[in-house]
């Protein structure tokens, strides 16, 4: 087994996903213990712009696996390419972002290779020749420390926002190696009919540094507009607890919590969210929590760094105004 650390670069619209770039930082921290090169693995078709964007972020080598059949992500196509490359090059570890694509791909490839797989990692370390990961378990009621044992490569699926974005001006100029890709169209059994992009004026939850989230206290779908407005002012994303989803006020993909997404932004602003354990399961890993609630006894205040007892319908619009004013003075 080699000592190289691979980062699987997921990309869309000619740009690498934020989490994939974060994993280059994770790889850098592992490499101090492990040695070896940091290799960015970029599969796809027409990926020159992606390669250019990855190039300045600290990878030592970029493996480009280019093929027309890799134009859109399919499990069969991408699993074949990644598994073949890992088999041929035998890295110590492959880092994959915990996204819809990463969670679809990584277990399939691990099963094919007999590679140890650990998912939803919050931290990764290299101790005594083994990978040690921490990850939330039991709907975040516990943190598990997991060791990867045995020989051969392992795959770690890492949560977004756990590692910083690497600087875009690394002096390293990675060597780009183009890997030959052999793919048979017949081997790709599924076909992507379309990807309907859900139009949002605000950024996606897992890419957000700041998340503004509404709960039952929002009282109705129309009131989410004030959260949207604050989100635009802050460059934030908008999410929700489960009740607004169950009431049909917001789409299912807004939901943060045990039955929805797990997020860990720099700031989580909880508006009218009581703070049930099911919701805390999805957001208690946030760096800072700010809670606004009318009820001074809301459990959310027990975990908030800043708790504001008050009327969110008055506070939020004024806060948006104040944020815009503060930004204009910079």
């Amino acid at each position, binding site marked *: 087994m080699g000592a190289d650390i691979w980062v699987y670069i997921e990309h869309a619209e000619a740009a690498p996903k934020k989490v994939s770039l974060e994993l280059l930082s994770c790889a850098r921290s592992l490499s101090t213990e492990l040695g070896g090169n940091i290799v960015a693995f970029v599969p796809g078709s027409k990926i020159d712009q992606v390669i250019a964007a990855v190039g300045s972020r600290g990878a030592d080598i970029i493996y480009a696996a280019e093929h027309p059949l890799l134009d859109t992500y399919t499990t069969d196509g991408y699993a074949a390419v990644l598994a073949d490359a890992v088999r041929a090059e035998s890295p110590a570890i492959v880092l994959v972002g915990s996204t819809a694509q990463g969670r679809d791909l990584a277990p399939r490839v691990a099963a094919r290779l007999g590679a140890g797989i650990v998912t939803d990692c919050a931290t990764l370390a290299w101790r005594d020749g083994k990978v040690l990961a921490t990850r939330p378990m039991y709907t975040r009621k516990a943190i598990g420390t997991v060791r990867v044992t*045995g020989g051969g490569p392992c795959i770690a699926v890492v949560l977004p926002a756990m590692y910083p974005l690497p600087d875009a001006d690394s002096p390293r100029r990675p060597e780009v190696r183009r890997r030959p890709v052999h793919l048979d169209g017949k081997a790709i059994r599924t076909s992507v*009919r379309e990807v309907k992009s859900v139009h949002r004026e605000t950024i996606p939850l897992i890419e957000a540094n700041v998340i503004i989230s509404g709960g039952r206290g929002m009282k109705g779908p129309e009131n989410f507009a004030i959260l949207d407005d604050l989100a635009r002012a802050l460059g934030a994303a908008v999410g929700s607890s489960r009740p607004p989803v169950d009431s049909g006020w917001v789409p299912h993909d807004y939901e943060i919590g045990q039955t929805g997404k797990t997020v860990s932004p720099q700031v989580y602003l909880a508006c009218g969210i009581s703070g049930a354990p099911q919701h805390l399961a999805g957001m208690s890993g946030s760096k800072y929590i700010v809670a606004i609630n009318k009820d001074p006894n809301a459990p959310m205040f027990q975990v908030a760094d800043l708790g504001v007892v008050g*009327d969110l319908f008055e506070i939020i619009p004024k806060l948006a105004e104040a944020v815009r004013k503060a930004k204009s003075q910079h």
Partner: protein
Amino acid sequence: MNIIVCVKQVPDTEAPIRITPDGSGIDETGVTLVMNYYDEHATEAGLRLREQFGGTVTLVSVGPERAKEALRTGLAMGADDAVLVSDPALNGADHLGVARVLAAVIKTLPHDAVICGKLSTDDNATTVGAALAEYLGLPQATAVAHLEVDAAGTGAVVHREVEGGVEVLAVPFPALLTVERSLNEPRYPSLPGIMKAKRKEIKTLTLENLGLAAAEVGAAAARTALVRLSPPPARKAGRMVEGDTEQAVAAILAFLVDEAKVL
């Protein structure tokens, strides 16, 4: 249509958990164990396919003897049969080991669709479904939020939630699907269903019955091991602000600028 649904028994997510003093796992004393709720959605998806196409829904689980209770939940919902693989040699098996065992069972059963929950709420691994698809050599569609099987039952068009959108994916059967909570609303077991499920014999298999060796799928083959379980870092309640709107806005703004440094 022959439908297989994979089921796991897990602690009820509504209840708190107690970590054992040595951190080796959770103390199961007094813990209510239930069917993983994503698997309820998987079972519901299977039952709806049976209603549409006829056929059978067979539940398969890997776990200790008590996991039969989770299978009975699925039988009470309306599944036809249930199989449990229970073997002490599976203590310490990892997700790939469990997927191999499930594959060995499912290979002995006719299957047009194999349906799993998207994840299990105990170890949150999201691993067994796709690994099982690999061992069965089936195409997969994970985290399915909408499922439409064509009239002939030869394949499906599914919606998968991806970041920033919805992927519409065509997948031919036989296939493995893992399902999201938003796919359906699981039915409650009916009283006759519950009575029937109580009487139903659940087939129990050992590794030997499946022709598997502990060295292939048990702890010795595991590539991951839980070192310890710890409570999550406690969050302390911070500062509280009670005042008028202006004071509240000023406090939040100062927090965003000075402490969180996002402005």
